[in-house]
Structures are given as C-alpha cells and as structure tokens.
C-alpha cells in the first residue's frame, strides 16, 4: 500500500526525474565553474606551464604570477646579473629565476583600491538614496508616483553605454573625468533605479503598523524609519547592495572610456598586465583571482541576511 502510494505520489518527484535533475545540476555546475577553476589555477602556474600545449592540469605551483602582478621588472645584462648580491627575499628570488630584477611596485594595488573605493562608494550611495526614495514611494502620497517610478525604471531600458559619448563630453566639461567622484556618481546613476524598485518591493512588504506603533510610542517619523523599518528591510538592503556592487565592481566599458591615470579601476588595468610580449598569463590570472575576492567575501558576509526572514511570525497574516 505504502509502496503504491509513494510510486504514485503527486508531490514527490519520481526516482528517474531526481536522477535527471541531479545529472543536469552537476553538469551545469561543472561548466560554470570550469573557467573559474582555470583562472585560479593559471594564477599559480609558471609562465612556461601557462602556455604549454597540451594544457597542463597537474603542474608545480608557483607564485610567479602574483609576484609579477605586484611588481615591475627589468632585464639586466648577463655580466651585471652575475655581480648582483644574493636575493634578499623570496619574491626577489622568484624574479631572479626569470632572469630579471625588481624595478619597483606595479600599479595593481592602487587600481585595486580605486575599484574598492568606487565600487563600495557607489553601492553605499545607491543604497542610501534608493532606500530613502523607496520608502517615500512606498509610504507617502507622491504626486505622479506611478509616472515617476516608470521614469526611474526607464533609465534601464537602454544599455548604459549607449549614452557613453554624451557622458564623456559632460564629464570633461564638469571636470569629473578620471575622478573617483565621477565614477561613483555614474555607477550610482545606473544602479539607483534597480535599488529603488527592489527596495520598494521589500518596504511594501513591511506592514505600516510597525511604524505607526513607533509613532504612537513617541518616536518621530525618521526615528521610526531608522529603528523599525530599516532593521526589517535588512534582507532587501543586503540583496540590493550585492546587485549594485556586482555591477559597479565589474563595469568595464565606462571605466575604459572615462578613467586612465588617476581613478582607473581594476577591470581596465588587468588586461594591460600582460605587457608588450603578451606572455604573462599567470599575472593576469592572479589579478583576476584577487579581483574576484571582494564580491565573493561581501556576498558571503551578507548571506545570512539573504536567507533569514526576520519578519517571520511577528505579524499574524
């Protein structure tokens, strides 16, 4: 009887469909993760191993790529090279092994910091403005509310790069080209519509009674917003922040166009590492690997907010 009912269950998937689903998921995961695994492993290869054919899956790990990423190096004549004192540090040694000496630090650290400042700065600004705007749209009578919301959304209806030339000219006039502020404002402008729409949805879900209770308990509207609405919107704010950061962090086209010397972010810089000879794939892979980390860490840190339904049970629906 139990056998019969389980084999004919309406809600339980059959054994076969579970198997098929499992295989599909494993295949998909493999295909998605393969490039990532390849980049990370290439970062630990030597220059020779990185371009060997057939490609090496098993290799002797080396930090050459990471050392090259953070340094600039010069070749010295063979007789001079012999006269040098022994290498002082492990990274000196790695460079010597390539027949070169360290000339100085590279600009990767600086570019990486630019990415951090611009990425997190624009995310913070998008969240700040987006939360306030979303709260207003959700709670107050705003004249032409629907039109305004549509207008805000309409900025997403074309690819942002379509307005690259006007923005380039405008930024040149305003002195915003190649500045951190300029890039923060630009990425905020692109992200704000996403932030407003996502956050409005989350705030709409928070019953008004909470704020009303706080208002009656003697708090001002802003205190009620800060102490009662914000903690409950944390889930929405966290996921919106992740989306905003991913866009600003990965953006390439505007960064190439608008930044060069001062505010250049990591994405346009990493391809230039490959250098004139076009051989230094481990350094490029090392840069890409380091570039992946902040978004990954940020997402993992906010994961508990994404998963936790903190309003569960407090209001009876």
């Amino acid at each position, binding site marked *: 009887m139990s056998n019969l009912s389980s084999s004919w269950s309406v809600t339980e998937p059959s054994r076969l469909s579970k198997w098929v689903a499992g295989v599909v998921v494993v295949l998909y995961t493999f295909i998605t993760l393969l490039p990532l695994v390849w980049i990370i492993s290439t970062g630990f290869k030597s220059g020779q191993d990185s371009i060997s054919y057939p490609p090496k899956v098993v290799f002797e790990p080396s930090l050459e790529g990471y050392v090259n990423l953070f340094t600039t190096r010069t070749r010295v004549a063979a007789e001079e090279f012999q006269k040098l004192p022994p290498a002082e540090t492990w990274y000196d040694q790695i460079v010597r092994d390539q027949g070169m000496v360290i000339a100085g630090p590279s600009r990767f650290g600086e570019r990486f910091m630019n990415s951090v400042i611009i990425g997190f700065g624009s995310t913070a600004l998008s969240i700040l403005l987006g939360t306030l705007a979303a709260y207003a749209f959700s709670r107050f009578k705003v004249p032409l509310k629907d039109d305004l919301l549509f207008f805000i959304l309409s900025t997403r209806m074309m690819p942002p790069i379509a307005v690259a030339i006007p923005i380039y000219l405008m930024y040149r006039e305003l002195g915003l080209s190649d500045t951190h502020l300029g890039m923060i404002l630009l990425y905020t402008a692109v992200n704000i519509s996403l932030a407003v729409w996502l956050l409005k949805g989350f705030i709409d879900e928070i019953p008004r009674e*909470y704020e009303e209770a706080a208002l009656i308990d003697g708090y001002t509207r802003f*205190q009620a917003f800060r102490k009662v609405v914000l903690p409950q919107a944390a889930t929405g704010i966290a996921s919106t922040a992740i989306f905003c950061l991913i866009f600003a962090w990965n953006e390439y086209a505007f960064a190439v166009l608008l930044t060069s010397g001062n505010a250049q972010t990591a994405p346009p810089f990493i391809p230039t590492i490959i250098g004139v000879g076009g051989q230094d794939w481990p350094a490029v892979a090392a840069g890409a690997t380091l570039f992946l980390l902040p978004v990954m860490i940020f997402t993992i840190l906010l994961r508990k907010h994404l998963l936790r339904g903190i309003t569960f049970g407090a209001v009876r629906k």
Partner: protein
Amino acid sequence: MAEIVIRNLRKDFGAFTAVKGSSFTIRDGEFFMLLGPSGCGKTTTLRMIAGLELPTSGEILIDGEDVSMRPASQRDIAMVFQMFALYPHMNVRKNIAYPLVSQGVPKAEVRRKVAEVAKILRIDHLLDKGVGGLSGGDRQRVALGRAIVRNPKAFMMDEPLGALDAEFREIMAEELRALHDRMHATTVYVTHDQLEAMQMGDKIVVMNHGVVEQFGTPQDIYDHPATLFVADFIGSPAMNFLRFEGQAPAGAGTITLGDHAQPLPRLQEPAAGALVLGVRPEHVALSDTAPLKGRIEAVEYLGTTQIVTLSTPFGMVKARTPSTLPARVGDLTGLALNAPRLSLFDATTGRAFRTAANAGVHHG
C-alpha cells in the same frame, strides 16, 4: 487619564468621505466602543484620535486641549493594533520598553516598569523571548504591555481581538475588561462585533457609512435603537421589522396595525406614512388570544430558548421563547408584542420616532 471630545470630525480621501461630521464625547475612564460594519469609518475615526490620520475638518480635544493637527508622538496616547505590530527584531522586554526609551526614562526605571507590567499581564516568564514564537494570546498581552507601560492619557484599540482564535478571544476579552476596571484608563475600542461591544463597553457609538447612527450605553442602544440600521445591526437574531402604512398623532399610545390597535410607548411626535414597528425577538410571545396572527415556519432549538420563525401579514417575525413551550411548524398562532419595548421607525428616513420610552436616549 483624559476626556476626549470629538466635534464635527470629517475625513475625506479624495472624493470619498470616510467620516462625515461625527460628534461624541468619551468621558474620563470610559471603555468606549466604536462599532460598525467594515468601511463605516470607525477605524479612520480611531486613527484620527491617535494622530495617524489628520482630519479634513473638525476638532479632537484631549483633556480640553485641541490636538487635531498634532503628530501622534505628541498626543500621549497608546495603541494596540489588530495585527499586534510587535517589533519583530526585538524581544518581549525590548518591545514593552520601547515607548519608555523614546521618553528617555532611566534604565533602572525602565527595567522596573517593564517587570511590573509583565507581572500584571502574567508574561514575566517570556520577557527574554523573541516575539516570533509567542502564541496569539501572549502576543496580544505583549502589545497591551507596550501600551500600558507608560501610563498614557488614553488607549486606542483597533479590533485587538480580531486576530485571535475563538477560545483566546473569550479569555482576552475578560482580561481586557478586568485590566480596564483595574486601571480606569480612557479606552477607545474599535470593533465590528456587536457582541464584543455590548459585553465590554461602557458606551457605544454605532457608525455606518461615515455617520454616527447612535451614541449611548449598550442597554440604551439595544433597547431603543435610534435608526433602522442600529436596530438591525445590534442583536442576534436582529430586531423584527413589521412594515405597514399608518398614522398616529403626537401623544397617541396605540397605532393601527392591520385590523387591530397595537399599544406602544406614547408617541412624542406625530407619525404617518410608511412605518416600521420594531420588536426584539424576546419581546414576542406566542399567545392564541393575541390579535396579530402568524404561521410557524421554522423552529431553531438553542438549549434553554428556541427561535420560532413566523410568517405574518407584515413579514417574517422571529420570537425567542422558552424551549419548553410547544411550537410545531405549520401551526397558526397569535403574536403578543411587549408594548413598552416597541420602537416605531419612519421607513423612508430610517429614524425612530420619539416616544416616552426612548426620550432620554442620545440620538446620533
């Protein structure tokens, strides 16, 4: 504690008028019910008193002070919401303490007051729990605790029992009333449940379509409804309406109902045209000698009493009689109406005529 006076209060939402010129007075320490069907404006009225909505016109006086346009935070009022609205990110203790924190009460004092309130409400063992896992009744107690902890001028309650299961409802209704009797706090309570209103209220305002239909004690409202709406809304089964054409001058003690003179409380104004005679089911007795005749259509047994439905020339009439009284479907019998407890309404305006019985009753 405080007296609340409402004068010509009106609220428009665009073209829709939610409350049309209400006026009533809530005396100090009264348990005051705002009763009416959904959409009648009772909740809007409560929210205006609390300061969550601003009136379009009219005045709200708390202790003689006009607070109509003041924000909620400056009215010193507490509110219990139907959905409780406990802050989900705080535990029970913090929820109850929250109104005190806004006033900058010292920490030791907050702790003492929270403990005191928790003890009154018998939730002291729950103080450090989150609000998510509480039962409906306990959540309601926490919401009450948050309201009473700072001794506000008045309490607003928006259907506070509406979200509870039937068993909790009974218990909480008793607890609420007991709490009120202990604290004597002016309380404004919104409900659509007429039984709840009768059971708990000192005074009731009955609202319909944004208009105050009647304002008075539960007994006055039940015995002497001011309008057909109130007569129909209050009581279960509702008041019986016998519709007929007739006329009677001021001072008359009877009215012609079909072929006989029906005694009723002495009229203080003339009545004529389409009329409605209102009688509660418990004021209808079955008596073969009564001139008004009817045929028994149905009998509902309710334990000690039974509801007998009869068809008469003036419409269906329900009588509440002792269940020991024999009543068989199909039988023809007479209906004796208890004259001093009758109401006479104007069928077109729905208004009750003034009689010796309802003269002292406050009409909307």
